[in-house]
């Protein structure tokens, strides 16, 4: 074990700090994921509406998110808004804003795809039964959409959790940064610590992401 350098994690409060870092990552990603799911459903429905200006705007939004690396978005929101508008956003709000901005766009596109994949006859039958648009979406289309969405959105959610490692660039100390700090502080005493510490960080990410993917499998089976 010594050669792997896992022992450095048990010095002082190192392990506790790693867990605190993990909590920062989880907090940012869970808030953003929750907001993205709600907003994504809304955006996704709007994407299917037949309205040219609306479609164009949503297209620009989606393409912006696709083209811009999250890193750039973080810099624009955290430093750019201060430069251009003089706003002083906290690093955490900037991170949540960027991740929600990203998640909403991608989630919206997934929702749009799922709605499109619901056969047209479902809409027509619902209307034939005398339901209005809201009822049709609420009782007929969305339940089917959500079932189709689960496997797709799990990819996005776990990706969002892992991408939170970028927030170290705007000064937020999250799990990966704490890992680097621990490795570097022990560079002389245990030069191999990198391997052990990164292995533990990997395990921590796994512990967070795995239950989500289990939950998805469970829901998929239950709702099938």
């Amino acid at each position: 074990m010594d050669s792997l350098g896992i022992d450095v994690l048990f010095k002082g409060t190192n392990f506790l700090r790693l867990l605190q870092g993990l909590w920062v990552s989880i907090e940012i990603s869970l808030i953003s994921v929750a907001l993205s799911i709600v907003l994504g459903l809304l955006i996704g429905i709007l994407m299917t509406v037949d309205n040219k200006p609306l479609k164009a705007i949503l297209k620009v939004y989606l393409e912006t998110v696709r083209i811009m690396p999250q890193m750039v978005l973080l810099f624009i929101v955290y430093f750019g808004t201060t430069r251009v508008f003089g706003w002083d956003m906290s690093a955490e709000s900037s991170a949540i804003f960027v991740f929600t901005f990203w998640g909403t766009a991608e989630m919206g596109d997934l929702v749009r795809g799922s709605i499109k994949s619901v056969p047209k006859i479902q809409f027509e039958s619902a209307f034939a039964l005398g339901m209005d648009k809201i009822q049709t979406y609420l009782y007929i289309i969305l339940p089917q959409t959500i079932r189709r969405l689960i496997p797709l959105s799990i990819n996005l959610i776990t990706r969002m959790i892992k991408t939170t490692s970028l927030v170290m660039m705007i000064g937020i100390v999250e799990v990966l940064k704490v890992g680097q700090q621990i490795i570097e502080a022990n560079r002389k005493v245990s030069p191999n610590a990198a391997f052990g510490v990164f292995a533990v960080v990997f395990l921590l990410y796994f512990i967070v992401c795995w239950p989500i993917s289990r939950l998805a499998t469970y829901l998929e089976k239950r709702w099938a």
Partner: protein
Amino acid sequence: MKNNLVKKLTAATLATGLLAASLTGCGSSAATSEVAGTEEKTVEASSNAGYRTLDEIKESGTINIGVFSDKSPFGYVDENGEYAGYDVYFAERIGKDLGVDINYVSTEAANRIEYLQTGKVDIILANFTVTEERAQEVDFALPYMNVALGVVSPESAVVESLDDIGADDEIIVISGTTAETYLTKNYPDIKLQKYDAYAEAKTAFENGNGVAWANDNTEVIAFSLENEGYTVGIPSLGDQDTIAPAVTKGNETLLKWLNDEIETIGAENFFHADYEATLLDTYGAEYEDTLVLEGGK
């Protein structure tokens, strides 16, 4: 011109992005208003000019100092979660003499200038080398450390001067470093072996692929002390660069206070004490006078 274009592009993209966000439904505006809440809180802390004057810092009772959190031994976090290192030792003194608490901000090499220009930190103390390009973006105070290039070679064949290098001998450098630029410019006859990463250069040097390895002197000194059988034959080569604290461009009150502080504590040999407390383990006593700059001189 170019800079201007980038700024315009950024502004335009930002505007489009925000426009899209605000137009795409109430959802995004929930996020925006949440953000707006935090904005009101902190807006009074930062003055319009984008930085806080000395009086504003004293009044608020807290100074924001940007340091590295993973560059041992200059700025790192120890096992109890406390910031430590050569830069942090100095930061602690600044906090004490100003009579304010310190809020450490973990910075990366790539965002140090951004932090100052947006006033999100008051001082950067992150092993910040003074260069002309950077001096146009931020204001440097008096320096507190020297950096130069150094050349390390095996003990069996120490290279003490670059004139000793034979026609067939090669020197190892890392691409993109000041060592590469300096040698290419000043010693065009010396053959260089270039590697992209530190680890590759290190392995090549240990395997004897080159007669010597040129890099920042702090790096080569640390290498020779950590590895048996190597000596730094040339501890200081070429232009002397310095490391200094930096503040937002135009923040004269804070800059003046810092300069006075560095001169005052120089009289009591503060930075030598700093070296002995933080760098001695890594660099040893013999490099103390090469690396430390006292009182800005």
